[in-house]
């Protein structure tokens, strides 16, 4: 039995994603060598910039595994950021208190959405679309302007946002001004990785994690096998909203501000990343490692477009869409070829 184990299609999709990422990054380094694309810090910046998105995508992956979707995440992040900032500036609340409050709100938000999806069996797209409207509207209700946290408002939070974790000095490189710039990451990246690892372990090694896959594989069967499908679906939304709240906090640590239009369309980034990472919208297939590389790929696409710096606004969008298109088609072709070979 040990001989030549068949790779199952899920794993293959993840490998395709990783391979495509490596190829794309290598090409980027080749073309934009002189613009510092190959710097270690460029790579780390992708992590720093997308720490929040990584968390959100982990949650999104969990929901998508059950065959659901959560399009409220972008708005929830906007709401979280606004509330965090507002709480710290207007109510003078402590950073820790606010973080806890945000997490609790995330839990409640997820529980309501989860209840509607799981127990009332309303389509997740519609429930979370309502959630999206609600959260976006609430953002404006909290405050319709643009507010930010400064050092004076909340030194703790400010310190969290500005602390750097330097990598070993020898990785550093002198910049044009003669300064040795030591590559660094921010604590947000560490948190994002922790979340990633925890969710990975949860999906693989806990009953709840496996239930997510079962429900997505065949809901009817899962019921017949004695799983509590309703509860599983509900919890998937709770988890998604919770991770989204964590993501919101990381996002806020990056932007340090709240505004009504923040994070619009982030749900699409999260969905696209998960899909590029091999998660199927139909459920049952996917894992967070893939989703992580999905985020890295969308992040790299952005950096490539930015580094080019000659693209008109429209071309930048078209380039992003074209790369996305190539990815999706490549994946689909690989999948079709594999399916044919399996037959």
């Amino acid at each position, binding site marked *: 039995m040990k001989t030549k184990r068949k790779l199952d299609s899920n794993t293959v999709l993840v490998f395709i994603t990783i391979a495509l990422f490596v190829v794309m990054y290598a090409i980027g380094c080749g073309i934009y060598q002189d613009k510092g694309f190959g710097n270690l810090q460029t790579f780390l910046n992708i992590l720093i910039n997308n720490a929040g998105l990584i968390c959100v995508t982990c949650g999104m992956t969990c929901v998508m595994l059950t065959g659901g979707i959560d399009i409220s995440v972008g708005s929830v992040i906007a709401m979280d950021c606004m509330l965090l900032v507002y709480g710290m500036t207007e109510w003078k609340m402590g950073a820790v208190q606010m973080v806890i409050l945000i997490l609790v709100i995330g839990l409640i938000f997820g529980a309501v959405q989860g209840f509607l999806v799981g127990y009332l069996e309303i389509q997740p797209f519609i429930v979370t679309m309502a959630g999206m409207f609600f959260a976006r509207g609430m953002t404006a209700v909290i405050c319709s302007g643009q507010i930010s946290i400064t050092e004076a408002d909340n030194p703790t939070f400010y310190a969290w946002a500005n602390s750097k974790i330097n990598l070993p000095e020898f990785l550093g490189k002198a910049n044009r001004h003669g300064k040795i710039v030591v590559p660094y990451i921010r604590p947000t990246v560490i948190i994002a990785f922790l979340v990633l690892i925890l969710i990975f372990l949860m999906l693989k090694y806990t*009953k709840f994690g496996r239930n997510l*896959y079962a429900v997505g594989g065949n809901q*009817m069967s899962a019921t017949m096998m004695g*799983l509590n499908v309703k509860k599983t679906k509900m919890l998937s939304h709770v988890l998604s909203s919770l991770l989204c709240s964590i993501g919101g906090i990381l996002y806020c640590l990056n932007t340090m501000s709240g505004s009504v239009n923040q994070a619009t369309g982030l749900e699409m980034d999260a969905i696209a990343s998960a899909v590029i990472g091999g998660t199927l919208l139909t459920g049952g297939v996917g894992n967070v490692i893939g989703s992580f590389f999905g985020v890295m790929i969308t992040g790299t696409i952005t950096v490539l477009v930015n580094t080019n710096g000659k693209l008109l606004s429209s071309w930048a969008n078209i380039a992003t869409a074209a790369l996305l298109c190539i990815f999706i088609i490549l994946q689909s072709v690989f999948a079709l070829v594999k399916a044919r070979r399996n037959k």
Partner: protein
Amino acid sequence: MDENILITMRDISKSFPGVKALDHAQFTLRKGEIHALMGENGAGKSTLIKVLTGVYSLDAGEIHVAGVDGPVINHSTLEAQEKGIATVYQEVNLCPNLTVAENLFIGREPKTPIGTIDWRTMNKKAKEIVDGLELKIDVTIALENYSLAIQQMIAIARAVDMDCKVLILDEPTSSLDDNEVEKLFKVMRDLKAKGVGIIFVTHFLEQVYEVCDTITVLRNGEFAGEYSVEEMPRVKLVAAMLGKDFDDLASIKKEGASHVSDDVVVDATNLSHKGTIKPFDFQIKKGEVVGVTGLLGSGRSEMVRCIYGADKAQTGELKVNGKKLNIKEPLDAIKAGMGYLPDDRKADGCIGDLSVRENIILALQAKNGMFKKIPASKQNEIADKFIDMLQIKTASRETPINQLSGGNQQKVILARWLCTHPDFLILDEPTRGIDIGTKTEFQKLALKFAEEDGMSIVFISSEIEEMLRTCTRMYVMRDGAQVGEISGEMTQESVMAAIAGGGE
């Protein structure tokens, strides 16, 4: 409650919109008993089981389970499992995206001391289980990589392994071959010896007589009687199921080849589809009934799918009525007068939420073309005609097909093809999951169409007797290749020998 009784169900009633599926049904299961639940298609067997295990709520009646005081109502399969009732439902119900091992253990995974899933133990145990069933499969890959038969075996293994007091098997043998059925019976007898009560639903009378102790017969949702196997001869059982005397199978006789004309309807040479079936030849004459035989997974379905164009042929040549035909899509085949009743009813046959009427006229509509819509009155007429002719048990012609019982769904799909008036009809396992009365009906129909309408029919069935009764000639398949053809005087033995390949 009697010490020995595991389950009693009293006066169970259950209605669906327009149908009374159960009407004061009774059922009693005792310890160490294999209890057959019999009845025609749509008699309410599956519904009774689903009521017992909490998939459906019951309208009226009482259920008592040993070890629980008072009437029991299960709200979910989970609750039933907790009371020691393990079930394999009629349609295979597993998660194809999970590994074999997970499917065996989901919901009761072995845990490590810190509460996480212990994959090593799980895989090890799973391997023991499949080895015990003599299945040669890798438990660590997704279930979807295996055939329906294996999936069915896994579903059974899962239920059996659950350490239950009651095991319910709803038509587990419909997609198993004899060898696998034997394995299953061995398992059942072992459990019986341990005092487990087993409810066994099947349409194969031989199997009932081979393993069962008691028989409960349902008829139109009503309780028709409980009998012990010894005192119940076959004919009486069938009579009880049908509620009338059964004209014996003997009445199906082949006319011989007298009505077969010399016109070759379909003539295939060297057809093949990469990965599923190696090049083969096939010929059928007008009015002929030809069989395709072979072991499970030998490529019978693949061969006919290739002729029909469900899998596009990559090599070879196909002539229909002497004219060369290049089939790109099944529609081309339909236009050339072909019809194909697929073996996987759920995946390839039924259009779930559509009504019986729409399911019946679908292929005819496709044949006519999108812009020539069949008028509503004509649709109703056709639907009513076939509901009547095939005695499809349905609340109305507008009932969604997925609310019909398994056997009746099959009849609807048959009606779909009959109404296109095909010259050449492929019936792939038409009798799977069909009660004995209807089975005979199907066989008779096949012969009748061949004789009276000059239809050429390919008949595939896992039951050799059925094919012997209907076919004049058989193609023999093995490992995805055509290995021969038998005709003339065929007996069970000669066919088996051909399948096994002893003749070479």
